[in-house]
């Protein structure tokens, strides 16, 4: 029974990691941009939600709905006015810019919100659970997992069923040729980052309800997201979900053997997958 519980808790944890990773995967897949500020943007969104919760007295879920369009705009402006300027054949400038952005965001949040540990007030739902075959499953982790699946399904539909998705895929494959066909890559990039910020808002909602956050917590959340993206294979959204679950399950199983191995087990799983399939489990394109 404990082993089943351990694995299910790991799968649910994987949902959280997949939510962290989905936005990263989207941006990485389309424009090969490694956004080192992704974790800090999640924390930024969490503060935005917190601000709305405390100013307007809303529930965090409602506040996240209001925060989402704001984050969409932030993502659009960020890509349009900052990141597009540095995208090019050299991958170093965007890396450095997002690194700088991460430092700036952390210190701006510290200045604005102080170092206090904050949490989104989720009320009863934070500790609620449902009984399932002798197991107690937290409502919040279940919601997180369901949201992760919805996000992946939604993004997949967007990618493969819409005109915008076709433009995304075309730009990802060959931005120059796509440009010849009348697609403006810089606008596609801006839209992609803006959509990624919607996912970031959702990740921020669940991160903020699950545990405390403070201005400095972002980078620690980034590494699992990266690993999930890489394990899943570049550009594959379902792969990102599977990657998140692999890391989550590896962590809980590792911890069940000995808590010292919890984080290590996740990293080891990542290395093993890379050893067996260096391009990740489900690579979308050959490049």
């Amino acid at each position, binding site marked *: 029974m404990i082993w089943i519980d351990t694995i299910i808790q790991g799968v649910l944890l994987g949902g959280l990691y997949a939510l962290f990773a989905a936005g990263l995967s989207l941006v990485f897949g389309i424009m090969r941009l490694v956004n080192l500020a992704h974790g800090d943007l999640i924390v930024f969104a969490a503060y935005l939600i917190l601000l709305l919760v405390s100013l307007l007295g809303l529930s965090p879920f409602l506040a996240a709905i209001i925060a989402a369009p704001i984050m969409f705009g932030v993502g659009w402006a960020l890509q349009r006015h900052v990141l597009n300027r540095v995208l090019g054949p050299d991958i170093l400038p965007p890396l450095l810019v997002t690194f700088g952005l991460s430092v700036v965001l952390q210190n701006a949040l*510290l200045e604005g919100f102080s*170092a206090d540990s904050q949490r989104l007030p989720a009320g009863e739902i934070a500790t609620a659970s449902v009984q399932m075959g002798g197991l107690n499953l937290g409502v919040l982790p279940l919601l997180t997992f369901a949201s992760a699946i919805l996000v992946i399904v939604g993004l997949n539909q967007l990618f493969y069923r819409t005109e915008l998705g076709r433009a995304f895929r075309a730009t990802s494959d060959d931005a120059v040729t796509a440009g010849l066909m009348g697609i403006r890559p810089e606008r596609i990039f801006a839209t992609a980052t803006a959509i990624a910020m919607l996912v970031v808002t959702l990740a921020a909602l669940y991160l903020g309800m699950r545990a405390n956050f403070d201005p400095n917590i972002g980078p620690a959340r980034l590494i699992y997201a990266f690993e999930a993206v890489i394990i899943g294979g570049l550009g594959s959204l379902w792969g990102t979900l599977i990657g998140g679950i692999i890391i989550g399950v590896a962590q809980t199983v590792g911890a069940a053997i000995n808590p010292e191995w919890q984080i290590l087990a996740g990293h080891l799983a990542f290395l093993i997958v890379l050893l067996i399939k260096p391009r990740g489990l489900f690579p979308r394109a050959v490049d």
Partner: protein
Amino acid sequence: MITRRKLLQSSAATGLGLAAGTLAAPAIAQGAKIKLGYVSPQSGPLAAFSEADKFILDNFAASEAGANFEVIVKDSQSNPNRAADVAGELIVDDEIDLMLVASTPETTNPVASTCEAEEVPCISTVAPWQPWFIGQQGNPGDPASWEPFYYAYHFFWGLEDVISVFTAMWGQLETNKQVGALFPNDGDGNAWGDPNVGFPPVLSELGYSLTDPGRYQNLTDDFSAQINAFRQANVEIVTGVPIPPDFTTFWSQAKQQGFTPKAASIGKAILFPQAVEALGNAGNNLSSEVWWSPTHPFSSSLTGASSAELAQGYMAATSRQWTQPIGFVHALFEMAANVMGRVDDAGDGDAVAEAIAATQLDSIVGRIAFDGAGLPPFAAQNVAKTPLVGGQWRLLDNGSYDLVIVDNSSAPEIPTAGVMEEIS
């Protein structure tokens, strides 16, 4: 002040050799202010410790004794390397007479070590004395090699005090004496879980049995392994020293899984009221060590204000709830004023260090004297212990929390305001 003209005049009169002597020992002009260096983590993950700094510094500058001092404040950015750098700047560029440093070994240790090496007197606080003293030794693993310091002094409590406070609090409850431990893999967690000086030997002596699943990494997202282990061992008491986000994750998950211990005595994570409020209603009756509170029956030697008045002043000035570091940072400046009042030449580092060692001060955090009381011989010279009691966070009607002192068996002079209650 040595001007070029003065230098030339004196060189002409006494010869260059003597002039060089003048340069090496700059005369302190009559009425010049005594220079204090103050280092604390004002930004970064540990910044909550330094939130009251500005209030305390303003208070100090406004006090009668404070008028004789110039305080140069530096931020360690919660980073040990940065702390050592700014300590060096204070000593070399600002030529301070006395270093004050506060809050967590990450800041106190590099600064105290730099001062010891540069032979500048240093007073330190807000870090349990073991990580402060042992952490600065060349070989922390070999007690025989430990050396006392000549310039670095520290006042705070130690691990042994936390252990006795926690076990005294648990003694007030009817439990099955099964304790579950949440010790992370960091300096604090390893010290608390140490099989020789940590919790394990004391607990087994007192008849408690300890379930310690092992050292986990900070910022872990899942505690189901610990919760399962605690449930299997039928644990009724949880203790540990996690960081705030980890404790929230653990506590929410424990509630989701239907695991509620009778007592949870947690160091570090629930030090600040904001961290307890982050738990929502689930923070009621969590217990923690209390180093200073507005009900401590002490008053400031600097301003005469009682603990309650200091806390009220802070809350009025910042409209924030009081926190425990306030008393200790205030006491640090009490120490500076007291020590400098007992020396003839503030620039004489050896004399200042001797004055620190001779301190007998009734401060806002209790009596500070480096007499070795309650300490092993190796640390007796450099450490002064302050009293420690135990408290429980009680949920108020408006959703905020109040820290109520429930155990004073180690320091009976500090009044209790209630008795230990079970978590429900």
